[in-house]
């Protein structure tokens, strides 16, 4: 039997057990199995057992705390002297402190806060006294959180989740050295902030140019979400509308020509997990309406089936386009945007976080040939703006690794980095040609002509792969097909 002594509403699954609505994630102690797990879903990595000290003079309050902290290693101290002994001897993760320890005590709990804080213990005051002066003093002395007694059932699980997510900065250090490499303080701040929302069911939208790590961040957030299902990613720009629908919702045998067998869609695959929709701006309005409904109701029907299926997926999305522009141009429906944007994180391009270039290269060569850059080569690499971001960096590392013994000279770096084209006589001549064209046909026609040339060139260079053109030129599907229609006629679309 599960004890669910925390706030939150429940829905009946119809299978004889109830699960909480996913409006909050809190740790729950499973008496029968003897471990903690996040409410709603059992985590892949079960919640760790923490060492906790409760400093509390009231015997009833100690018992209440013991119940709320079941599953953790909990020590108790009923007075200041005992608390000091415990704090000096023990290695605690969290310390709950009452302020008045005894009938005639003079706030000795406050005096224990600096001792706990000095030992880097996450110190939480739980007191019946909540005057502004007391709260200010407690925070000034180093307490991490301050609570008024009386709602421990809800507050304690939330405190533990926050502690585990923050983990005193240790977890963040590991993340920034491994799963999401960045030394940029602003990016670290953004990722740390996003991690606070990882264990919720809120949707997340990640913005940023191609190659800035949007998918990596989405995967990281999923890994820290406590959701037991899979991380299912799909690039919306790589599919036509029909294919995207089949890919998302799945289909039944015979639903359309070529549907030889039943196929599970991405929504079903992401059950209890995360559905990551990359290049969400490339999705048609029609598709957005269908997906909106599925997100709202967590229910959908595969193609060729009128029987609804259920999937408890969390949505994360990404785009390299300007969301406000997509909304203004009605490429993105506002109601759909409302369902998917939740918390928004914007990742900076590598050009604005050059401190990450060499740490990323180190990581990319971790399992292969290590590279040593001569000072001039290092300067050259840092001077480059890396418009392709980590993808360009990865290609550069692969090229350099394959072509050198590991020592990178300026010449090698120059050979493998394509600098941004400077304004040359040739480009000047081209600009002159477009100027003349614009004078004759109007600016819009000149822009159309240039767009057509660039799109067709990119299409040729990518062997006709439209998804690659969308990603490379960072354009919308609408612009691509509109341009192809104009330059190649309707059949060229």
């Amino acid at each position, binding site marked *: 039997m599960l*004890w669910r*002594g925390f706030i939150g509403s429940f829905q009946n699954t119809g299978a004889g057990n109830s699960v909480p609505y996913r409006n909050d994630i809190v740790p729950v102690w499973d008496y029968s199995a003897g471990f903690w797990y996040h409410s709603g879903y059992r985590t892949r990595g079960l919640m760790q057992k923490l060492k906790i000290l409760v400093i509390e003079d*009231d*015997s*009833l*309050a100690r*018992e*209440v705390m013991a*119940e709320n902290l079941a599953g953790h290693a909990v020590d108790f101290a009923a007075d200041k002297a005992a608390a000091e002994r415990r704090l000096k001897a023990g290695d605690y993760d969290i310390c709950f402190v*009452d302020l*008045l320890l005894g*009938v*005639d005590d*003079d*706030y000795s709990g406050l005096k224990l806060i600096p001792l706990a804080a000095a030992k880097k213990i996450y110190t939480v005051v739980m*007191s*019946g*006294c909540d005057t502004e002066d007391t709260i200010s003093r407690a925070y000034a002395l180093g307490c991490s959180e301050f609570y*008024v*007694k*009386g*709602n*421990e*059932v809800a507050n304690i699980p939330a405190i533990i989740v926050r502690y585990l997510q923050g983990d005193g900065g240790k977890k963040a250090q590991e993340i920034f050295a491994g799963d999401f490499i960045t030394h940029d303080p602003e990016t670290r701040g953004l990722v740390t902030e996003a991690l606070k929302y990882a264990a919720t069911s809120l949707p997340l939208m990640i913005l940023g140019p191609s190659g800035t790590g949007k998918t990596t961040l989405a995967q990281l957030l999923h890994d820290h979400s406590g959701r037991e299902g899979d991380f299912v990613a799909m690039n919306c720009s790589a599919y036509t509308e029909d294919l995207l629908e089949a890919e998302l919702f799945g289909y039944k045998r015979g639903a359309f020509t070529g549907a030889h067998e039943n196929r599970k869609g991405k929504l079903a695959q992401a059950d209890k997990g995360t559905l990551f929709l990359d290049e969400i701006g490339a999705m048609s309005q029609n598709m957005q309406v269908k997906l909106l409904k599925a997100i709202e109701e967590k229910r959908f029907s595969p193609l060729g089936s009128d029987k609804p299926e259920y999937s408890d997926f969390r949505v994360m999305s990404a785009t390299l386009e300007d969301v406000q522009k997509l909304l203004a141009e009605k490429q993105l429906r506002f109601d759909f945007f409302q369902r998917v944007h939740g918390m928004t994180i914007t990742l900076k391009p590598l050009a604005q976080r050059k401190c990450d270039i060499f740490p990323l290269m180190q990581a990319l060569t971790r399992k292969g040939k290590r590279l040593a850059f001569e000072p001039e080569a290092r300067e050259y690499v840092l001077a480059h703006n890396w418009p392709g971001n980590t993808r360009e960096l990865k290609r550069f590392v692969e090229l350099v690794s394959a072509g050198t013994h590991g020592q990178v000279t300026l010449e090698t770096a120059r050979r493998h980095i394509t600098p941004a084209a400077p304004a040359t006589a040739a480009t000047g001549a081209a600009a002159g040609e477009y100027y003349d064209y614009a004078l004759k046909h109007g600016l819009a026609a000149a822009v159309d002509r240039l767009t057509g040339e660039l799109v067709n060139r990119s299409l040729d260079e990518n062997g006709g792969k439209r998804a690659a053109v969308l990603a490379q030129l960072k354009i919308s599907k609408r612009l691509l097909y509109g341009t192809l229609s104009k330059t190649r006629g309707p059949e060229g679309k």
Partner: protein
Amino acid sequence: MADIEKIYHNIKSKAVNLKAAAEQLDKYPQDKRDKFIPLMREAAQDIIRLLGELEAQPRK
């Protein structure tokens, strides 16, 4: 802190502890309930004592 403030604080503290225990009591197995009830009674008696002390304070 003045004595009267401590009395108020202790009443509040005892009362919230009592409330927290009362709210969870029905979820506990019988052996745990048996352990909690005497502690709750003790807290209730403390509250009565503290209220007595409050009444005994000089009137403003």
